């Protein structure tokens, strides 16, 4: 990718939030005001409900680089994925000591055990786990809706407050706004030359679940404006999509882009799958609308049938004119590992090459990863000729 360093003041603001996280200024101000902050674990946790309760939801993520996870290896055992271990290591080291609650879903084994051990070993006033069905059927929707109701009432009981529809509708609006703006940001990446790189986009996304949505929306508006006037253009020899396990390390994307690829889109729960579908309040109760959105959203590999996810991936490949896909799967991320032979075959059918990397959470993409990406880019280049 050909690029000079970006000069976008708002972008620097996001970067500062990420650098300070989990202890950002905004969070400490909120805590000082006596307000609550909750951590959430997966994109199947309906954030709007936490927001509507007047609590700041932040996403629990691990260290921004590959770390020595001495405690987590002892607690979670070595065969749980390095994402859950990295998060746990931060938790047990007190990095998230300000959290008033942790909310998870029964999404995958790694996440549910991270939740289990978090509440066993780390002092936390409130904790809740939602049963998340693995299907998209109407029966699954009604079970998940029950679970969302249950979560809301558990929260109401804990806070001794009532979360009414007006509050929910407000939260839906705030969150939808963020989703819409992020979609706009992604639209910019469909161009041949993009004003924002893949790694920078990831930094924006990281900030999106570490700030109040109100503040994020305000800043993203400015950034979108700055980008529209920016002369900076990124161009790559190959347009790439990144897919696979949870990943929020911009360094990894940057290492791909430094080698000449341009990451134009992704299928990550920390990026596209975070913003992709809005909550549609269309003649249904706000709570039901929320529950519909979360279960129907761009699916994680945990969902069955996987074809839903594969179809969305294929659609994005067309829309973003992707030349090649880089799959990065964290060791012991079993849901994605099982899907790999299937998606590889589907991509082959549409003539899209895939590079599959075994990684650890937080990897910066050095060493062998770098060598393999380089070879992949050369292969894509050769195909063009």
């Amino acid at each position: 990718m050909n690029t000079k360093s970006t000069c976008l003041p708002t972008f620097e603001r996001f970067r500062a939030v990420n650098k300070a996280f989990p202890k950002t200024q905004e969070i400490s101000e909120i805590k000082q005001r006596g307000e609550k902050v909750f951590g959430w674990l997966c994109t199947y946790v309906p954030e709007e409900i936490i927001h509507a309760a007047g609590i700041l939801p932040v996403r629990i993520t691990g260290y921004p680089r590959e770390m020595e996870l001495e405690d987590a290896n002892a607690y979670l055992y070595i065969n749980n994925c390095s994402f859950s271990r990295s998060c746990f290591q931060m938790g047990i080291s007190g990095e998230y000591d300000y959290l008033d609650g942790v909310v998870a879903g029964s999404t995958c084994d790694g996440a549910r055990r991270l939740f289990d051990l978090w509440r066993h070993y780390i002092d936390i006033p409130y904790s809740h786990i939602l049963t998340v069905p693995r299907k998209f059927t109407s029966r699954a929707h009604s079970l998940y809706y029950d679970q969302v109701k249950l979560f809301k009432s558990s929260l109401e009981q804990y806070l001794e407050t009532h979360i009414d529809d007006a509050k929910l509708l407000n939260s839906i609006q705030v969150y939808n706004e963020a989703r819409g703006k992020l979609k706009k940001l992604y639209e910019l990446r469909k161009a041949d030359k993009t004003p924002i790189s893949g790694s920078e986009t990831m930094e924006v996304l990281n900030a999106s679940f570490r700030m109040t949505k109100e503040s994020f929306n305000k800043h993203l508006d400015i950034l979108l404006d700055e980008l529209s006037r920016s002369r900076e253009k990124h161009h790559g020899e190959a347009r790439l999509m990144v897919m696979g396990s949870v990943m929020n390390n911009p360094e990894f994307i940057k290492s791909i882009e430094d080698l000449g690829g341009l990451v134009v889109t992704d299928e990550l729960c920390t990026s596209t799958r975070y913003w992709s579908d809005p909550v549609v309040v269309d003649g249904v109760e706000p709570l039901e609308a929320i529950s519909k959105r979360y279960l129907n959203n761009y699916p994680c590999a945990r969902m069955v049938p996987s074809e839903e996810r594969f179809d969305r991936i294929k659609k994005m490949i067309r829309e973003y004119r992707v030349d090649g896909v880089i799959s990065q799967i964290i060791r012991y991320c079993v849901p994605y590992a099982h899907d790999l032979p299937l998606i590889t075959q589907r991509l082959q059918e549409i003539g899209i090459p895939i590079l599959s990397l075994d990684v650890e959470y937080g990897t910066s993409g050095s060493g062998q990863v770098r060598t393999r990406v380089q070879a992949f880019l050369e292969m894509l280049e050769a195909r063009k000729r």
Partner: protein
Amino acid sequence: MQTIGIDIGSLNIKAVVLGSEGIIGSGAEVIGDDIDERASAAIKKALNQAGLDEDGLPVLATGAGSKLVANISQRKTLASCLARGIHFLNPEVRTLVDMGAESTTVIRINQKGKLADWVNQDKCASGTGLFLQQMAKLMGVSLEDLSCYAIQAKSKADISSTCAVFAESEVISHVHRNPPTPKEDIAAGIYHSVASRTISLMKRLGITQDVAITGGVALNGGLVTIMQRELGFDLIKPEYPQQVAALGAAIIAREKLHKDLT
């Protein structure tokens, strides 16, 4: 009466003769085709050093290779012997890290000097003595130099602490980087990765002080220094850290002897 303890590891054989006050002789041999012959040689060396030439002293064997020895009938497992050995040398030790060529074991010792719990290194090679040797070879330096570099380093290269195979390719990429990562930093990265793995294993068991380190890797100054830095306290290192299991074996042999006599 004197007893003999012999530790038959995966690479080396260590034998000690225990007198009433402590070790009065020791001998070491490298593992060879004929283990029985090698074991006898190590025992002979230890007896010579002790100024004894008599045969027929009670012998007890331990270590991974001990069951391959035909002519020693008494046997105890490594952790039991390590526990007895370290307790004899330092009764305050509650946690012991034994780092051999091919495996690492962390042991908890109760106040009576008995084995209370232990954990073996998980299924991977990246925390062992052999791994350090391979890494030194990969960088074209001696193990002693690697150790010195690691202590001197101002910063450290990122080396995966998860997997020996990953670690190896990372070291290679640091060596071939342009400009190459300083040797000190790579060495520090390697040592940190081994230290981290070992500390993780210790945490699986729970760390109770005092903590001692034994096994051949304990002779490696770089690793001990870095582990101490990470742990934030000093490790107890016996004068002859490779002999502790053999010593424990000799102690158990003596205890058995007393038991048989009474």
